């Protein structure tokens, strides 16, 4: 085995990216919980923690750039670094969605909800397992595992459509519901996007392993 330093750099990038991924995943879970429980303190904690993800994103991007410039990687190593660079962007977005959801939670913390939150926690649950599976597939470079994410995305999409329709009826019933219904629609939309980012990460694992770029 040669190029030990390079191997170490690749392993470190992967490790830091995965811990950034776990943190984003956790923050999304907490943001939805803060919304559900109308927990002001928790929402504020999520908002503050997003900054940590933004900082780490910049650091990881710099590290990847330096490694590409100095090690001139090719083939599998190059695919790993490009995958890591693009995954970093997806993971950073996850942090932003968590922050947005927490801000929505703060906005409505003292109101009674117009409906019991059922679809949103369900979407959250599926989207988060998508994130978890996609990150794990990246860690273990397991393309078959990555493919498990595909049908889950359809489930999230269909829950999103249902949530959207339901909230529209609340708006039609009473204009006073508009503000909260829009907020909840936005939360649902964010979770639908979380699932899309997880799908991106999963598809990149397939690319990393098989070398073929496919977007499904």
């Amino acid at each position, binding site marked *: *085995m*040669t*190029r030990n330093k*390079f191997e170490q750099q690749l392993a470190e990038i992967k490790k830091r990216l995965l811990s950034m991924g776990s943190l984003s995943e956790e923050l999304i879970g907490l943001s939805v919980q803060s919304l559900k429980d109308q927990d002001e303190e928790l929402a504020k904690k999520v908002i503050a923690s997003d900054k940590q993800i933004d900082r780490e994103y910049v650091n990881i991007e710099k590290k990847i750039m330096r490694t590409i410039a100095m090690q*001139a*990687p*090719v*083939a*599998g*190593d*190059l*695919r790993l670094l490009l995958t890591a660079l693009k995954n970093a962007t997806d993971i950073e977005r996850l942090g932003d969605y968590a922050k947005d959801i927490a801000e929505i939670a703060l906005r409505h913390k003292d109101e009674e909800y117009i409906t019991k939150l059922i679809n949103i926690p369900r979407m959250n649950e599926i989207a988060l397992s998508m994130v978890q599976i996609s990150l794990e597939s990246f860690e273990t470079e397991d393309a078959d595992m990555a493919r498990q994410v595909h049908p889950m995305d359809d489930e999230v999409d269909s829950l999103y459509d249902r949530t959207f329709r339901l909230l529209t009826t609340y708006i039609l019933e009473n204009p006073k519901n508009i503000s909260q219904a829009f907020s909840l629609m936005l939360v649902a939309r964010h979770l639908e996007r979380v699932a899309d980012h997880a799908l991106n990460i999963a598809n990149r694992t397939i690319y990393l392993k098989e*070398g*073929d770029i496919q977007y499904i």
Partner: protein
Amino acid sequence: MKQMVKMEVHDLNLWYGSFHALKDINMKVYKHKVTAFIGPSGCGKSTLIRCLNRMNDLIGNVHVEGRVLLDDKNIYDKDVDVVNLRKRVGMVFQKPNPFPMSIHDNITYGPKLHGKKRGLDELVEEKLKDAALWSEVKDILGQNAMDLSGGQQQRLCIARCLAVEPDVILFDEPCSALDPISTGKIEDLINELKRHYTIVIVTHNMQQAARISDYTGYFYLGELKEFNKTKKIFTNPDNPETERYITGKFG
């Protein structure tokens, strides 16, 4: 688009005495393309490139089996004139080796040997221009070629090779004795030359193979492990052994 084949290697085996240096090599060299051979030292890449114009004939104790076709004609057939073959398949070596004579005479030496008497000055200008050296030497054509810098000497050797109007040019590590700027010039030149010539290059510099070649062959222990388009080799090679070599995990 179907590529035109310029040279074709069929079941080629080569022994240095009892050492089996090339094992069942099969590959094609495409016309007006750059084909690079890569692999660790002693893998057979230089041996193979020397088979393409029978340079190995000059080494004693070499035994070759198999066929190497140039425009469908086996260059190992008994009726092949080796001098004429080497005119059609020229070679540029690792270390620049100009003749100890003037720049002008270096270019005209080959054509004169092949009987050319007229238009020699025009030929010198044309070939030096083709080798991207003209502007640097046009006022000193009478000077000894040994006084040029290493990079200039190598371009002179390329111009000398072009002067006999070959079809194929073989480069055996042409930049390993040159600095990065001279290397860049030779690489640009190879890119220009492929419009009119077919090029085969042996290189130890993998990034160079990636930069300038269209096809790459990876050799190990006398075997051609993978032959593929360069962009495929450097993004997603078919053979895991190729991957381990080009990513520097072994070799």
